């Protein structure tokens, strides 16, 4: 009885504790351990969501990202160091290795002091660029907090970001305004599809170095919405790297502050809510996709499931079940906006690229399906679903099948094809004519021969 109760309590605890889809060990790197109390609400929120938060100084001897060649932590939260680097155990190489082993990283920057060169070179690895002197802040004379930065205009007050595009799900939207003090702006390399901005600066913002003053026009690399306040990079293995320009936005002070824009009224900030959304996404509590089941078969009733061989021109049905992780559970995945999940039937290049339509849902997943006729080409084909979108982990499914040609007895018989009736009639006319000719020949023979012989 007690044993049963213990089990029940365990189950309840597991249900209550939300947990990231990829582990709960979180390492927070904080140079000055005294500053820990500045972020007490953040730590409490993270622990309430099921993380084991360990706060370490980069100078600490015990600090190591790897133990016995494996990750010692699942997630890494780096707060900006004041000194030049992050220490010997957090070099850019270590951090990239950590990402290669599916670790997630949230890196906070601050415009208060210049960013350390170690962090800058780490960001360069990921094609995220900081301002030249690494000590610029974003200034906006239209969207600043009049209560705390009436002079400097360096506390931005912004709406939470909506969807990046119409076909991308919005993970960070909602009501209310954010206060973002002293943002270190980032710009993203243009070519990479792995990079996506989470929150861009408004069009009226610009980057400004308080020590050097206004730069010469030719030194300005980016202004307005080209500057990013929060940006993200999702690697090919779906490990996430998030850069938050303003570490101060995570402080207790700003979680509960009230702000007032030049034109607006005094309103409380939603920084706490946004911090939850941001850390949840960065540590894979949201935007994680999973394929539960893949089925393909002939469209006929009672056909074999997932056969290894098909024939050309077979009517084929493909089904895939996709789940999305939302904070603490798997839910049926819904395609955002006008986006499409596509199935490719490929041999080197796709012969078919078809939209997968949702046909039903289970408790935790949506069933997407497509029906098509295999092409008139035999060979080794594969069913492929390749779904890579900003903010979602990648789906890459590949199932190889053989497509054979018709067997000799699988072609339609000639009389089924009406177009061939003329030639069938021709053939039988020849055969019938031949038989009639033989009969007439045999009956016409004797007269001439007898006469010939009698002569």
């Amino acid at each position: 009885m007690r044993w049963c109760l213990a089990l029940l309590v365990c189950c309840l605890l597991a249900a209550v504790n939300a947990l990231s889809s990829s582990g709960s060990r979180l390492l927070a790197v904080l140079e000055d351990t005294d500053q820990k109390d500045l972020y007490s609400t953040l730590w409490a929120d993270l622990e309430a969501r099921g993380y084991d938060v360990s706060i370490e100084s980069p100078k600490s001897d015990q600090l190591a990202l790897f133990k016995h060649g494996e990750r010692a932590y699942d997630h890494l939260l780096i707060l900006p160091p004041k000194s030049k680097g992050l220490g010997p155990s957090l070099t850019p190489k270590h951090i990239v290795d950590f990402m290669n082993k599916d670790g997630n990283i949230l890196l906070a920057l601050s415009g208060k002091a210049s960013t350390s060169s170690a962090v800058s070179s780490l960001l360069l690895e990921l094609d995220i660029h900081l301002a030249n002197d690494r000590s610029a802040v974003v200034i906006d004379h239209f969207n600043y907090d009049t209560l705390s930065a009436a002079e400097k205009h360096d506390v931005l007050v912004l709406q939470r970001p909506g969807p990046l595009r119409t076909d991308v799900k919005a993970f960070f939207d909602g009501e209310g305004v954010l206060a973002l003090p002293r943002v270190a702006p980032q710009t993203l390399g243009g070519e990479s599809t792995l990079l996506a901005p989470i929150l861009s600066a408004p069009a009226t913002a610009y980057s400004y170095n308080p020590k050097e003053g206004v730069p010469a026009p030719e030194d300005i690399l980016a202004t307005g919405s080209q500057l990013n306040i929060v940006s993200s990079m999702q690697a090919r293995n779906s490990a996430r790297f998030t850069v938050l320009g303003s570490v101060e936005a995570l402080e207790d002070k700003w979680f509960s502050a009230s702000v007032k824009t030049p034109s607006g009224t005094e309103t409380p900030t939603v920084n706490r809510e946004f911090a939850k959304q941001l850390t949840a996404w960065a540590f894979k509590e949201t935007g994680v996709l999973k394929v539960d089941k893949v089925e393909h078969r002939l469209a006929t009733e009672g056909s074999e499931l997932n056969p290894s061989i098909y024939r050309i021109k077979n009517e084929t049905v493909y089904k895939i079940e996709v789940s999305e992780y939302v904070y603490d559970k798997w839910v049926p995945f819904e395609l955002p906006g006008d986006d499409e999940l596509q199935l490719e039937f490929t041999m080197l290049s796709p012969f078919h690229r078809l939209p997968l339509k949702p046909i039903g849902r289970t408790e935790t997943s949506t069933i997407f399906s497509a029906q098509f006729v295999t092409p008139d080409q035999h060979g080794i084909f594969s069913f492929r679903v390749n779904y890579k979108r900003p903010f979602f982990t990648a789906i890459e499914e590949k199932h190889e099948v053989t497509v054979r040609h018709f067997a000799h007895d699988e072609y339609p018989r000639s009389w089924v094809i009406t177009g061939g009736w003329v030639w069938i009639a021709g053939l039988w006319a020849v055969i019938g004519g031949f038989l009639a000719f033989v009969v007439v020949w045999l009956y016409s023979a004797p007269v001439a021969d007898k006469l010939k012989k009698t002569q």
Partner: protein
Amino acid sequence: MAPKRHAASTTSAAPSAITTPAAPKLSSGPATLKANASAAEIAQHVWHQYSSTTPQRTLLLDAFMAFLVLVGGLQFLYCVLAGNYPFNAFLSGFGAAVGQFVLTASLRMQTSDSGVGSKPSSKGKNARFADEVEEGTGTSHERAFADYIFGSLILHFFCINFIN
């Protein structure tokens, strides 16, 4: 053209006059053409010569071959007009007509040559002996016909199989 044909028809008529009893009737007909005969007259003359001098079996062969040309031609015309979709059907239907035509032509060569090829004028009275020699070197009509049946059956087997 006309004198040549005239000559050919007279030479072919000469042996048939000896071997067949219908010969005397033939010689009573218009055996010769005038030098300035019209095309219609020539055609009529040729047709008359052909129908009156050809043996019945050869006539039958010719009729069958004409039928095969008609059937084959219609099938080809249909293919040109309506497309060749069940191509194997076209191939076997058309091929059957062509193959049958070739086989029938061979039969005609083997059965109608024996009478025409011999030269009775040189051999004179021992025409029977000459006939026997002819049959000894060539193939007998029965043998030729048996080969023809065998070949045709193989052709039909292939065509029916191929038309599926």
